[in-house]
């Protein structure tokens, strides 16, 4: 038998992950470029449409640049929802791969989530040329935008892990994901600024980490024009907690095996 060393395990892990990543890219894009293009276009179209809707109501916004407002809110909302919606079928389509002993549940999840992170980030990049078209002004603090985006991806990673594991563990998992996804419309702060909320209720809004992240990104985009309320420390603490829950659920799923919902 082969000697199991740390290095050989690491090489094996790397082989499995790279194979899974390639498999996920094919699953995502359907092997021709069109699938990828559609993925990129979706958020773009939404931001434009949403922007137009808000522009029609421009007089009800106080000193807030509308396109930037839509962009920051929608990007984060879309990223979270995309993560949750795409993780839903991860077990159903990959279950056959678990036949290979080297492929673990966590590998399948991580491969899918990494692809999701890349897709959502790429679509964010696609939106930033708006700067050159003059639709948005040059950001106030670009590193802050990147930092907030990293926190958003970390959050989405954890939530995906939780959602994916719940689908595998419980019969109500798929419905749970749909509700969780819809719920993110409210809890990401896409449609409001914390500053608009009466201060007694603002604390409730700030329970949700993604409200902080949205505020943070807005601070980076146009923070000099409005006052924003957020705490990066709070998001990090929330993310650590969610990651822990996600990993624990995934571990439980790996031990129990996914429920067979095909009957």
């Amino acid at each position, binding site marked *: *038998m*082969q000697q199991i060393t740390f290095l050989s395990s690491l090489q094996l892990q790397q*082989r*499995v992950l*790279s*194979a899974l990543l*390639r*498999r996920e890219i*094919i*699953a995502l894009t359907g092997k021709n470029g069109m699938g990828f293009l559609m993925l990129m276009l979706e958020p773009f179209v939404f931001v434009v449409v949403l922007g137009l809707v808000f522009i029609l109501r421009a007089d009800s916004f106080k000193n807030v640049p509308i396109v930037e407002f839509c962009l920051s809110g929608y990007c984060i909302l879309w990223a979270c929802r995309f993560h949750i919606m795409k993780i839903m079928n991860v077990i159903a*389509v*990959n279950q*056959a*791969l*678990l*036949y*290979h*002993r*080297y*492929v673990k549940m966590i590998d399948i999840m991580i491969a899918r989530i990494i692809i999701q992170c890349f897709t959502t980030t790429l679509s964010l990049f696609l939106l930033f040329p708006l700067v050159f078209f003059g639709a948005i002004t040059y950001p106030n603090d670009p590193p802050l935008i990147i930092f907030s985006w990293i926190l958003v991806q970390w959050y989405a990673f954890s939530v995906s892990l939780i959602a994916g594991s719940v689908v595998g563990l419980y019969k109500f998992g798929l419905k749970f994901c749909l509700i969780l996804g819809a719920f993110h419309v409210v809890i990401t702060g896409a449609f409001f600024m914390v500053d608009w909320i009466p201060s007694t209720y603002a604390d409730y809004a700030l329970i949700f980490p993604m409200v902080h992240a949205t505020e943070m990104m807005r601070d980076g985009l146009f923070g000099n024009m409005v006052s924003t309320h957020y705490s990066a420390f709070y998001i990090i603490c929330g993310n650590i907690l969610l990651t822990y829950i996600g990993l624990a659920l995934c571990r439980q799923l790996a*031990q129990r*095996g996914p429920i067979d919902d095909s009957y």
Partner: protein
Amino acid sequence: MKPVLKNVSFSVQRGEKLGILGCNGAGKSTLIRIIGGVENPTSGTVTREMSMSWPLAFQGGIVGSLSGIDNLRFICRIYNVDYQTALKSVEEFSELGSYMYEPIKTYSAGMRARLAFAISMTVDFDCYLIDEISAVGDKRFNEKFKERLMDKTHNRSVVMVSHFYGVIREYCDTAAVLNSGILTVFDDVKDAIEYYESTLKVKNITF
């Protein structure tokens, strides 16, 4: 919860070919999936000292939404097999031609079996786990399967489960019978078949 397997214990030596007989629902596939590490046992351990295949079940281990080629690529990457040589042998054996580029879900059961078997034969293992080899393909392919399997597993270990003893008698040196969750190991295949038949008689099943 009702246990599927109770106090099952056995070992397989290098080069040994063990057949496990059991009727439908006896827990054969569960047993082989536990040996292969696809499922975890509720209690107990599996010690693997040889490199071991995944349970070759004529369809397990390949993904329906991927094409034959992509499935092969995936398995080559995981098990560190050279893709070009593997591709050649799979194309030759499975005779799928251009269907190799179509998603597996469009295949017939026979085509799927041919592909899954061909892919699994490209990887070298010390021990092969075979789940229910009995016939999915036509007669010509069954002959081919048998020939290839014999060739590949010569001097290697095999654990094979089946509900039909014809196959076990043909391949295996030792045999065991799985009945009501209890595994009885026999040194002689003949004894195992005799015992298996007696358990079948109780259930009024005849071949």
